């Protein structure tokens, strides 16, 4: 059986914790929640996973990779729009060749999947919900079931009646269920699907889970689950201190009476008191005289002298210190986290870039309209076939490499570039053409005297006039005026797999940076002679161009002068440089 873990959500109720960490990556005893989920499912023989991603996808995929390290197979389904849980399964029909297990990325249970699976199969269910008894929450719709556990109703509890059930965030699904889910529309596997199930009386069942159940929905849940699991571990193993205790002061170590977890490289100085259980991440320093109880202190944090922390989460990379003789007292479900600044200047910059794109592309299209019409006529008269040619260009390639491992993103992002058709519509032998590539054996492909090109096409290419319809793409917002040049799928895939050239394989990582950038017409490579440059030079130009799209403020500060590629002046000057280079006909074939 295969698993699908729903990890796309933004986790807005978990903010500020989820500003930088997606919910499935939140730490429980310093290990991401999603790893606990994968380990649990693996116990029942599920070793192939797909993880749906949207919010901070790189945090999850760079950690898990293709799953080899965890002895499972992991692939990713990158969702451009957040259309809830139904969409997450609707968009991957090919993944359903059998029953699949769907698991929320913020839920942890000890559910017996063998039993759940048997329950599902025995009843010939198309969709089964693992449910829990709803003893506490009153203002919420509940699932009612008949004596065979079939779902018969979904709604608010009738006054006077006993509590019913709510979904636990774990489901077993058959492919048929996809027929009831609309495409490209917000649809939840809970409310929306349950309504349809009740209306159409579908064979859907609810399996009652009576064991442990944790849902991390609010910051306090994260604190609770950390403390709870630490306590359980302490009971099970009959000891108090877990993790790396070498950095703990000896006197403190001998005074500990409640469970404590300490990550790697963390230091606890003298006279620190642990009044209750605590979970401490990696690279944390707790300085003299501080008191900690019932708290979670995340990675790379400094807790100064005489600080008291009780019932609180201290987010990663923080420094809590005071200059006065008095200490600081942090308590009561407090989340101490940095403020994420939404830089107004960033927004303004982004909007002004888009405005420049819109204005210039409209002005361009209007000014050039007589030429555009003439070209269209010439193409029509010169050879048979359409005027506009839609060229597939890759924004994000499908295969991604992390270290030595490959894994697959779905779907690859494709933009259709509008160009004037410059080639005959007859077919040619690709291998024969390949031997004439000006880049030699490399990933890029360009011919100097291409037999496929029409007479008008030759002129259009020479003058780069064939690219003019791209202004329509810019107007539509498919690409910007400034950015990296979109590669055809074959070139993109080659670049991912083989790098720039065989003898210079190590440049591959550099070359792949380009896929992090926005697509655009003008750019470093485009303005610096294009096809006159070697593949290596091109790779570097593109990589630095892509750097312009870095949003991280800290990184941008570090980059100093390089961030000018992201300034308005840089934007305009690149457009002008590219136009100049095109007019000089540098390197256009």
């Amino acid at each position, binding site marked *: 059986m295969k698993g699908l873990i729903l990890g796309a959500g933004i986790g807005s109720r978990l903010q500020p914790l989820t500003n930088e960490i997606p919910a499935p990556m939140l730490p429980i005893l310093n290990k991401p929640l999603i790893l606990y989920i994968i380990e649990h499912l693996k116990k029942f023989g599920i070793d192939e996973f797909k993880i749906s991603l949207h919010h901070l996808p790189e945090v999850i995929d760079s950690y898990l990779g293709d799953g080899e390290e965890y002895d499972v197979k992991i692939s990713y389904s990158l969702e451009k729009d957040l259309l809830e849980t139904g969409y997450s399964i609707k968009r991957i029909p090919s993944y359903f060749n059998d029953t699949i297990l769907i698991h929320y990325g913020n839920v942890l249970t000890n559910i017996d999947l063998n039993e759940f699976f048997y329950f599902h199969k025995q009843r010939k269910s198309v969709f089964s919900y693992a449910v829990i008894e709803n003893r506490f929450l009153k203002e919420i719709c509940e699932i009612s079931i008949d004596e065979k556990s079939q779902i018969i109703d979904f709604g608010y509890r009738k006054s006077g009646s006993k509590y019913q059930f709510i979904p636990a965030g774990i489901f077993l699904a058959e492919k048929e269920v996809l027929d009831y889910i609309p495409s490209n529309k917000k649809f939840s596997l809970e409310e929306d699907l349950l309504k349809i199930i009740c209306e159409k009386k579908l064979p859907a069942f609810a399996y009652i889970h009576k064991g442990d159940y944790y849902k991390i929905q609010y910051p306090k849940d994260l604190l609770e689950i950390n403390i709870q699991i630490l306590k359980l571990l302490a009971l099970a193993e009959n000891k108090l201190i877990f993790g790396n205790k070498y950095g703990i002061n000896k006197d403190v170590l001998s005074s500990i009476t409640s469970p404590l977890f300490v990550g790697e490289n963390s230091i606890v100085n003298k006279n620190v008191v642990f009044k209750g259980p605590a979970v401490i991440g990696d690279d944390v320093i707790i300085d003299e005289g501080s008191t900690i109880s019932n708290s979670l202190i995340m990675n790379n944090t400094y807790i100064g002298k005489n600080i008291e922390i009780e019932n609180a989460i201290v987010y990663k990379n923080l420094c809590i210190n005071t200059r006065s003789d008095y200490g600081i007292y942090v308590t009561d479900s407090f989340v101490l986290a940095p403020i994420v600044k939404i830089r107004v200047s960033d927004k303004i910059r982004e909007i002004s870039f888009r405005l420049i794109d819109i204005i210039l592309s409209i002005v361009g299209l209007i000014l050039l309209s007589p030429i555009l019409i003439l070209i269209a006529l010439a193409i029509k008269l010169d050879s048979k076939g359409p005027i506009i040619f839609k060229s597939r260009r890759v924004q994000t390639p499908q295969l991604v490499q992390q270290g030595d491992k490959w894994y697959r993103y779905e779907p690859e992002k494709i933009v259709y570039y509008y160009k004037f058709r410059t080639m005959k519509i007859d077919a040619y032998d690709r291998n024969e053409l390949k031997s004439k590539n000006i880049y030699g054996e490399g990933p890029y492909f360009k011919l100097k005297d291409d037999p496929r090109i029409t007479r008008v096409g030759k002129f259009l290419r020479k003058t780069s006039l064939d690219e003019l319809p791209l202004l329509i793409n810019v107007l539509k917002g498919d690409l910007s005026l400034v950015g990296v040049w979109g590669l055809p799928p074959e070139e993109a895939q080659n670049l991912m797999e083989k790098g720039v*050239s065989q*003898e*210079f394989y*190590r*440049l591959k*990582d*550099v070359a792949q*940076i380009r896929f992090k950038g926005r697509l655009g017409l003008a750019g*470093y490579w485009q303005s*610096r002679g294009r096809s006159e*440059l*070697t593949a*290596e*030079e091109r*790779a*570097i*130009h593109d*990589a*630095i*161009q892509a*750097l312009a799209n*870095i949003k991280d403020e800290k*990184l941008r500060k*570090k*980059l*100093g*002068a*390089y961030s000018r590629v992201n300034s308005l002046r840089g934007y305009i000057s690149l457009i002008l440089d590219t136009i100049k280079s095109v007019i000089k006909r540098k390197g256009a074939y």
Partner: protein
Amino acid sequence: MNFVEQKIGDVLVVGVNLARATLQEADAFKQLLYSAMDNGERKIVVDFSQCDFVDSTFLGALVVSLKRMTQAGGDIKLVGFRPAVRSMMELTRMHKVFDCFETVQDAVKSFE
């Protein structure tokens, strides 16, 4: 002088004496490295400690030279990144293409 050449043992150290190493000087730089290679230099260290900014064309020249150098069986090593240049090198993964060092001495030593 935009570029200062100095010989330490059999290693040629080229100091880039420019706050901004950009496309204006990239060609001259490439010519310099190429002619050094033609003269039989196989161990070159490029010192960027005077540079706050190295543009993509300049880096391009460097990489093309490195390619030629590796084919000839030699190596080009880089030293003296200022913070912005270092960040750029790391972000573009260029630090994996070149062997990079803190000081000229370290780089020269690494050739031994």
